[in-house]
């Protein structure tokens, strides 16, 4: 007997099986839209939906990085601090350089923070949750205390354009996401690096023992996550139009929830790259829905906590069986 390629029937069976095991985000989005249509039909208008898509962009960008970290069994909860710092750098005038240079400085800054996180996680082997939370604390503490001396100001013109302008009725911001999502997604799917990420997620011990450069891959994941947080900040600052001390505070947690809803669990990249993106939209939509129903921040938090618990529990239960 020799090895063959899947027959048409096997392919169909495979598709059926994968439909059932699809990330919750797809089903969830459809369900949400249905619920919304019944309770608040106005929410389902194309105009508003596009606005929600635009609103979801910073989250969707952050989700790209977070999903990569989760796939290599790590987590990045420092993105809130990075966003805060970047928004401060961009709007307070504390660094006087022309806009494009400022943007590059911010990106470099993000890369440094990511590298610093990676240092503690990979070399010192400290827990990524604690390291990134501590880093967020440090960054937000420094930024907020600096802002007492020099308040954040207006966003640079370029960013305001990106964040708020439209082409016709279509907002520009989602294209920023697309410009990041496509190359990175392509890279992760087709490069050697991407295959190594799959390996680490499937069996970290085997990845270590087969000579895969584990440390370098996790480091790259964290640097990328931090840099993507910088891009999130660009778009966010553009929306808001000015720097703010509240900016991006909920992003770390929401990005983790979106990643989980998108089918990426610790160790497996099921749902590919689209799952988390759809989940980012779904989460943003659900927050808007909750707000329109009169339930605010408390409901958001309770929902997210419940989602993490249920998803983690079901993943654990699956792993045992």
């Amino acid at each position, binding site marked *: 007997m020799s090895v063959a390629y899947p027959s048409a029937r096997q392919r169909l069976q495979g598709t059926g099986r994968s439909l059932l095991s699809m990330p919750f985000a797809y089903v969830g989005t459809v369900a949400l839209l249905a619920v919304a249509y019944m309770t608040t039909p106005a929410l389902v208008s194309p105009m508003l939906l596009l606005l929600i898509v635009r609103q979801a962009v910073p989250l969707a960008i952050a989700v790209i990085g977070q999903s990569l970290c989760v796939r290599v069994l790590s987590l990045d909860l420092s993105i809130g601090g990075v966003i805060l710092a970047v928004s401060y750098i961009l709007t307070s005038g504390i660094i006087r350089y022309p806009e494009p240079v400022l943007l590059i400085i911010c990106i470099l800054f993000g890369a440094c923070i990511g590298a610093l996180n990676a240092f503690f996680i990979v070399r010192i*082997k400290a827990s990524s949750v604690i390291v990134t939370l501590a880093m967020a*604390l440090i960054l937000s503490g420094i930024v907020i205390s600096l802002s007492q001396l020099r308040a954040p100001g207006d966003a640079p013109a370029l960013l305001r354009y990106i964040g708020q302008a439209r082409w016709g009725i279509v907002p520009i911001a989602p294209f920023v996401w697309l410009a990041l999502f496509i190359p990175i997604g392509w890279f992760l799917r087709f490069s050697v690096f991407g295959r190594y990420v799959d390996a680490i997620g499937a069996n970290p011990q085997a990845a270590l023992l087969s000579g895969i450069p584990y440390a370098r891959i996790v480091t790259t994941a964290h640097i990328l996550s931090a840099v993507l947080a910088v891009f999130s900040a660009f778009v966010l600052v553009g929306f808001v139009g000015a720097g703010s001390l509240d900016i991006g505070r909920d992003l770390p947690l929401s990005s983790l929830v979106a990643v989980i809803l998108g089918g990426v669990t610790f160790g497996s990249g099921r749902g590919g790259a689209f799952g988390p993106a759809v989940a980012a939209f779904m989460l943003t939509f659900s927050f808007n829905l909750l707000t329109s129903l009169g339930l605010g921040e408390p409901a958001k938090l*309770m929902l997210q906590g419940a989602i993490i*618990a249920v998803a983690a529990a079901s993943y654990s239960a699956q792993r045992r069986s």
Partner: protein
Amino acid sequence: MRIPFDRSSRSGLRLSTFALPLLLFIALCFLSPSFLSVQNLGNISGQVAALLIVSLGQLVVALIGGIDLSVGSVLSLATTIIVSVDPSYAPAVALLAGIAIGLVNGIGVTYVGVHPLIMTMASMTFVQGLSLFIHPVPGGTVADYLGSLATSPLLGIPAPLLWCVGAVGLAAFALSKTRFGLRLFAIGASPPSAARNGVPVKLYSIVCYVICSVAATVAGIFISGRVSSGDATVGASFALDSITAIAMGGVQLAGGAGSVTGVVLGTITLGLMTNGMNLLGISPFLRTAATGALLLFAISMQRRNVIGV
């Protein structure tokens, strides 16, 4: 993977654990004239009391190799319950809530097998939402008896000190004199070996998470009496602060080593640092940043073999 012990002093105490607070104390005596005043020292004990209680709870969980990020939210929840429910049974309701959350954490970690960081992050978020739901804006009234429990001195001893002594005494007794305490160290070193000796590992683990949540609740009741209001955000910093405090006190987050003395010293170190920065006029936000840096430093001292969460 369990880190093997070599020089196994299971208290985790080292020279630096004692030296650090001592050096800080001495430095502050020189750096700030008002440091040694009775009022300031009283302030320190008031600030430190709640953190100490929470950290002692965190110690219990750390001894078995776990961790609890939800302590801050549980503390906040307690304060919101105190101002929202009939005062005669408010503390009881708060304690019940704390026990329930501890049970959820414990069962999630031991029976369902969720990683403690993830499980307690989930409950932290949920409980935070719940607290905001119960009492969105800080305020409310706290019953007088709770206020006086938290603030009135007894026989000249300031109330916070009494709470501290009570908590420390209880914890020290439990860990060094009871069978439960001894078995916690066994579980932390090797759950299978402990189980082979007849220790009910899963049950004890759940109890530890319950104890931790209850400690956070007690701290919340104390704080609500002290500031005379309920505030859903008051507990925000306690999760990371308690982890910093126990790590500075020599507690091994991998389990099996730690002591009440260490936790007290670690909490004092953190309290002195905060107080010192206060006296020196440093912005409270820089204080937060410094605490974050201290946490990074403290966990770098821990030994671990895993890359990632």
